[in-house]
């Protein structure tokens, strides 16, 4: 028989076999679960239906429920080693270790420090520990029944082996990625039944096209970064889920916690229809970075406070050589929709109407004036027209005195500068109508309606998001990356206080937060952004006048927003 033919037959047979294997759906495994119940005020505890009397029952301290240590650990099958000298309980379950010290509000989970609202204590000679903390740190779930004043802990050893996987698609590169990875590692270590898996995309553009492709292929991630307008796009599919059930659920956010979010950020996580499809994740705004040495040399004493000052500074700082070639620019700028958006508001204009379906900037003199300012700077070559991160590198090599970039870009700018000169950072200049900075950066969305994800996975995703947006984590995140913390109480966290003290100018982004403007959370805005960008490029390259360019931009944008 012919070898090639046989080979072909084998290949085809393998193909059929593989495809049928792929089609097989893995069956659900039966889990051996332990259920533990304790009641506040009663001295009993129930394990899998069997009730035992406790010498010390569950109590509430500082709003947290404390339960007897021995009871909970034995019920879960963990071992406890008591260190009398330090008064520390060392709890071990599988590979996980928890160290709780009496009256200390910091505990250790798998080598990470975790802050407690209520520390372990000794009551009636018995050690009681915060139940939610202990349970979750060992991989269990807790639920609070307010009517019965009951805490239910559920646990299965299977959960430690078969962790709830949360695929998280993000585009945090370099230093940002390192920070995210570090924080995620900490979450995974302190929540042993959950595992958040970061999938890093090359850039935001790729993240969007990949997510769209994945949704279309019915294979989306569980959580992903998304701009508001992307979320609006994704919401047209089945898979995107809202967060309300989690916020109001058993492991949710209290009213105080919700109020603790910066209002602008909390608002930005809703879509135009009012549904909360997002949670804040990495919000930032644009600030102005400048070369302090160059400023000093030119006799400029501080960062420009108004856009007009900005233009004047550009004129002062620009230098040409005798051949007429530009050797130094006042500023470099890659035309950006977000900056122009801020500019519009600073000049008293509006981009879209409140219902997001009408263009308002077409004939606005403020908008024209602001745009003209930039156009003139480009035309006179006081400002260098750059693409991509060319503006950042210009500042870094000392060719431009200023550039507008995200608060988060600071580490990149510092790297580009390499210590050659002193870096300054300031809020965006104000226009005639005041100071306005667009709040941008992404939120997190959850594709909770995708059938491939189990409830355990979704609960784990929420646990991660809740943990990530908690005050301490946000403080660390902000301190490491420069992102704006989502929680107001993060400002009282020593980590963030120290970071701001070390580099006081990094508060610039925060200072602009209360006056920030939000971009439209509609799917049409995505299209509109590319129209605005295209038209801005035409205007700033000098191909059309500002008036004509804005007119065309208005027409283009009007055509795509719906």
């Amino acid at each position, binding site marked *: 028989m*012919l*070898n*090639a*033919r046989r*080979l*072909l037959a084998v*290949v085809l047979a393998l*193909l059929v076999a*593989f*495809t049928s294997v*792929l*089609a097989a759906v893995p069956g659900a495994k039966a889990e051996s679960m332990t259920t533990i119940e304790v009641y506040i005020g009663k001295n009993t505890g129930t394990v899998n239906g069997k009730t035992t009397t406790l010498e010390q029952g569950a109590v509430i301290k500082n709003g947290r429920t404390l339960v007897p240590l021995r009871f909970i650990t034995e019920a879960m099958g963990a071992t406890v080693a008591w260190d009398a000298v330090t008064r520390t309980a060392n709890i071990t379950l599988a590979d996980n270790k928890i160290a709780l010290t009496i009256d200390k509000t910091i505990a250790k989970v798998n080598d990470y420090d975790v802050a407690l609202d209520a520390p372990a204590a000794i009551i009636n000679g018995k050690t009681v520990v915060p139940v939610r903390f202990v349970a979750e740190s060992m991989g269990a779930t807790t639920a609070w029944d307010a009517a019965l004043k009951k805490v239910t802990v559920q646990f299965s050893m299977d959960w430690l082996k078969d962790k709830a996987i949360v695929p998280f698609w993000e585009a945090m*590169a*370099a230093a940002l990625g390192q920070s995210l990875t570090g924080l995620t590692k900490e979450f995974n270590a302190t929540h042993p039944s959950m595992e958040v898996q970061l*999938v890093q*995309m*090359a*850039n935001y*553009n*790729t993240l969007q096209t*990949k997510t769209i*492709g*994945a949704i*279309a*292929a*019915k*294979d989306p991630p569980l959580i992903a970064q998304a701009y508001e307008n992307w979320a609006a796009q994704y919401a047209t599919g089945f898979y995107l889920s809202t967060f309300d059930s989690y916020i109001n659920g058993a492991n949710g956010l209290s009213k105080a916690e919700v109020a603790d979010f910066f209002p602008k950020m909390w608002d930005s996580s809703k879509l135009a229809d009012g549904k909360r499809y997002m949670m804040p994740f990495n919000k930032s705004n644009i600030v102005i970075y400048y070369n302090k040495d160059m400023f000093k040399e030119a006799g400029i004493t501080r960062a420009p406070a108004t856009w007009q000052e900005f233009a004047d500074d550009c004129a002062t700082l620009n230098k040409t050589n005798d051949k007429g070639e530009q050797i130094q620019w006042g500023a470099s700028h890659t035309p950006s929709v977000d900056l122009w958006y801020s500019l519009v508001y600073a000049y008293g204009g509006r981009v879209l109407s409140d219902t997001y379906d009408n263009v308002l900037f077409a004939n606005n003199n403020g908008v024209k004036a602001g745009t003209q300012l930039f156009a003139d700077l480009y035309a006179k070559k006081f400002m260098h027209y750059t693409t*991509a*991160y*060319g503006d950042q*590198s210009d500042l870094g*090599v000392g060719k431009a005195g200023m550039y507008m970039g995200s608060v988060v870009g600071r580490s990149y700018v510092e790297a580009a500068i*390499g210590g050659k000169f002193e870096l300054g950072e300031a809020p965006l200049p104000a226009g005639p109508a005041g100071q306005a900075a667009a709040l941008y950066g992404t939120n997190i969305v959850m594709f909770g309606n995708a059938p491939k994800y189990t409830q355990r996975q979704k609960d784990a995703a929420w646990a991660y998001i809740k943990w990530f947006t908690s005050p301490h984590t946000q403080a660390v995140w902000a301190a490491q990356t420069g992102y704006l913390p989502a929680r107001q109480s993060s400002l009282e966290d020593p980590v963030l206080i120290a970071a701001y003290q070390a580099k006081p100018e990094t508060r610039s982004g925060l200072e602009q937060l209360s006056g920030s403007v939000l971009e439209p959370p509609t799917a049409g805005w995505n299209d509109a952004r590319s129209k605005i960008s295209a038209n801005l490029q035409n205007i700033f390259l000098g191909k059309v006048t500002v008036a004509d360019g804005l007119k065309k931009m208005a027409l283009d944008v009007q055509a795509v927003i719906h």
Partner: protein
Amino acid sequence: MTTMRQSVFWNRVNRVILYLAIAVLFILVVFPFYWMIVTSLQPQDSVMNVPPQLWPKHLTFQNYIDAWNAAPWLRYFGNTLFVAIASTLISLATSSFAAFAFACINFKGKEALFSLVLSVMMIPAATTLIPNFLIIRTLGWYDKFYALIIPFAASVFGIFLLRQYFMSMPKELWEAAQIDGASRLRYFRSIALPLAKPAIVTIAINSFLGSWTSFLWPTVMTQSQNKQLIEVALNSFLGEKGQQWSQLAAASVFTTIPIVILFFFVQRQFIEGIGGGGVKG
């Protein structure tokens, strides 16, 4: 009428001009590769110097180390190799069978089928991209290696080329084989295929090259990082590294070298295959 000496002189001058012209064009065409290598050996902080220097002052291999460590290149190479070899072997098999049938067997509907096959060349990949996405999704092959191999299991170019070769074989060969009692299959395997070896090599190289350099298709049909192919990975790398030209150049070099090396070994057959087989009217 020019004298003998004059025409010899002019001939010499002509030849000098000729070589000069070729050399200039050659340098222009090959320069980007030279530049790729030089840039990869330069430290990052000198890549944006103006004016750029043809020969760098400092040489360093650090970029190769950094670029290699920045992504799981070994995995990407493995994926690409696997996909390339698999699709090449399968498409060779299907193409040679089909080509032989078109060339040497008289069967009903042959002409119509062949026209159909040819017309495939008219349909651009862009047109069938989205519907193929749907088809792959329906088959459950999204983000699986099947999606990268099976759709390329047939090659119109291969069928076309091999058909030419088979058709150019004299009928006497087949008649002689028939007299010897050989079956069609036997003839195919022992006589026709070996004779078509140059074409087979060309097609194999072409298919391998196509897989190695594929970009749009894998971008759309896969999402997992552990299934990435080399070109897509390189583009992601570009997206990440932005202006770090020296690392980007290093990555470009080490993703290109394997294919260039392979080419050195097979260049003669490939070039002969293109030059000899594809031009018949």
